[in-house]
């Protein structure tokens, strides 16, 4: 990543911009002021007026007035007004009569008494407006002329600008600060948005349960993070594929092994079947029947052995879902019923609806459990000639009870191999968070497969 593509560089740029904006704004203000004064917009002048100069000029011009007449004074006043438009001027004669006035706003008496004159002088001394009183010519007999200039005329130009354009400058500063805040906000908002997007993208799962790769748009720090994330997803996917491949190989191996064992077994059956078509002695028929039973048993054993191997390696496919368990068991019984019927069993099925008939189980596993249990009944409890499948429902659990009238588990029948079948039942029952019990005595065996009611458990 190049430095200029990084977020750090962008952030530094914003800070530098913010700092320089202060400087630039000063410069801008200066140029603005300069521009105004140069062009002389409005009443501003680049000249700085001084009170002392005005006073001096006023005195000089009044003193040097060649002939004191109304016209001459009016002309003088006009000249001054051109120079100082805001100034006001008036002439008071020797006897105190107010004569010519220019631009006078205040109320002045028509007749000036010595007292008023003194009061006026005292009031105006050092006050606003700046007032200059001068006698006309060399002689005091002509009276005096007064110049009143508002103090602000003497202000430096900058102060005038602040006074007139202060609001604009203030707003300008606020605008610059706001601009900086907005730029910073946008910068962080951009980062935040991308981080949130990244978080969302990390939470999306593909069909295989892995996160999906992110489309990397920028090459900054977040872009690098996205790259790392993509790399991780890629590695995860590869690892999962490897694992699946291994699983596949193992399954394949077991399936092939099972196939290779069953094929010769089928050939044995083919031969035995062919022999059975021949005329045989009673002994021969007996031997064939034994052979037939062995074929069935070996077949079941191979199946159980393969399943058990897969189960122990946790490679047996497990896909639990909510199923109507009563319906499932009933449909499963439809395939076993004819088998028990053929063997001459009394079949007693009583499946009462549960309040909650949905169990979260893998139907293939539950089918396998039932198959193994029924297989056991068929092989080990054939003597009882009874099979009962019932439901039991209590507050704490719902259950299926499979009952036989065989000799019980301790008195194992001649057919061996029950161990592995029931081991599979055990692993599968526990794998689906169910429970099971075996009650066995010489008069029969009862297998109970229970689904514990979670809410009842919590209640306890």
């Amino acid at each position, binding site marked *: 990543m190049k430095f200029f593509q990084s977020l750090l560089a962008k952030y530094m740029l914003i800070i530098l911009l913010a700092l320089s904006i202060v400087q630039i704004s000063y410069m801008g203000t200066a140029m603005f002021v300069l521009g105004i004064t140069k062009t002389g917009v409005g009443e501003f002048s680049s000249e700085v007026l001084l009170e002392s100069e005005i006073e001096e000029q006023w005195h000089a011009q009044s003193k040097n007035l060649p002939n004191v007449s109304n016209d001459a004074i009016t002309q003088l006043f006009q000249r001054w007004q051109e120079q100082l438009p805001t100034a006001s001027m008036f002439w008071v004669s020797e006897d105190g009569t107010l004569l010519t006035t220019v631009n006078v706003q205040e109320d002045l008496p028509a007749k000036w008494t010595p007292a008023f004159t003194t009061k006026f002088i005292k009031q105006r001394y050092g006050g606003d407006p700046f007032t200059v009183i001068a006698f006309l010519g060399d002689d005091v007999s002509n009276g005096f002329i007064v110049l009143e200039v508002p103090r602000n005329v003497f202000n430096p130009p900058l102060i005038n600008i602040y006074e007139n354009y202060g609001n604009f400058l203030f707003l300008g500063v606020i605008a610059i600060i706001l601009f900086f805040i907005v730029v910073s906000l946008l910068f962080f908002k951009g980062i935040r948005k991308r981080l949130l997007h990244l978080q969302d993208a990390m939470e999306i799962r593909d069909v295989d349960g892995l996160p999906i790769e992110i489309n990397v748009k920028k090459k900054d720090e977040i872009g690098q993070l996205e790259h790392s994330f993509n790399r991780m997803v890629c590695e995860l996917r590869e690892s999962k594929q490897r694992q699946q491949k291994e699983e596949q190989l193992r*399954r394949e191996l*077991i*399936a092939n092994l*099972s*196939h*290779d*064992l*069953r*094929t010769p*077994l*089928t*050939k*044995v*059956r*083919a*031969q035995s*079947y*062919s022999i059975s078509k021949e005329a045989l002695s009673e002994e021969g028929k007996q031997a064939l029947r034994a052979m037939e039973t062995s*074929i069935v048993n070996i*077949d079941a054993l191979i*199946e159980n052995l*393969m399943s058990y191997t897969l189960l122990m390696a946790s490679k047996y*496919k497990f896909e639990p879902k909510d199923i109507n368990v009563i*319906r499932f068991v*009933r*449909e499963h*019984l*439809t395939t076993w*019923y*004819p088998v028990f019927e053929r063997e001459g069993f009394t*079949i*007693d*099925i*009583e*499946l009462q*609806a549960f309040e909650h008939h949905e169990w979260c189980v893998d139907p*293939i596993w539950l089918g396998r459990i039932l198959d193994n249990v029924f297989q056991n009944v068929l092989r080990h409890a054939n003597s009882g000639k009874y099979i009962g*499948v019932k439901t039991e429902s209590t507050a704490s659990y719902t259950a299926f009870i499979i009952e036989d009238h065989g000799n019980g588990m301790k008195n194992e029948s001649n057919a061996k191999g029950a161990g592995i079948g029931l081991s599979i039942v055990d692993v599968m029952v526990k794998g689906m968070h169910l429970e099971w019990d075996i009650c066995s005595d010489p008069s029969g065996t009862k297998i109970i497969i229970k689904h514990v009611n979670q809410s009842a458990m919590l209640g306890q």
Partner: protein
Amino acid sequence: MIRILYIEDEKEIGQWVSKDLTERGYEVTWLESGDGLEQHLSSKDIAILDVMLPGLDGFSIGKRIKRANKELPILMLSARTAVEDKIEGLNFADDYLTKPFHPDELVARLEVLLRRYQKSDDVLELQHLKMYTKDMRIINTLTEEEILLTGKQFYLLQYFIRHLNQILTKEQLYEGVWGESYIEGDKTLMVHIRYLREKIEINPAKPMIIETIRGIGYRVKL
């Protein structure tokens, strides 16, 4: 005569099955692989396929057959018993039988498939009834009269005939015939079965044709 296409690479098993099926009255064409399969497809009523074959495996062959002729029922006959294999097979095939199998079971399953696809023009004889499965005509042999059924009764009986010897639960029957999911406690099915029994059974109180399997459902057994 029912014509069977049978693909099996194991010679001993192939010979045995072909011989047994031929003895039972079927016409069997036995191939050791999927080569030259196409020429047989149009002339066969049913196919029996092994899975592990040289060249194309049974699954691929089965899918090809179904693509070429949807109406040809397929029965997979394999020593591969893993659930995954069965599921893959049943994706396209109509039945999956694992080895070692008993020839009687093979024939029973073949018959079910043939009936389901209405390939056999069997005349079924159920107790006192004679049924022509193709056009579903039912004759009472005691009176030599044809029994006429209403629409639903007809479909119900047809469903039983297609699943001959199988026990069917109430849910399966209702969903198979009405095409809707069964609601616990619904009496519609029972009412229709009662009417059907009244028409076809000699004594509806003691049904001999539509058997009640207590706790599970019903069955029509040949």
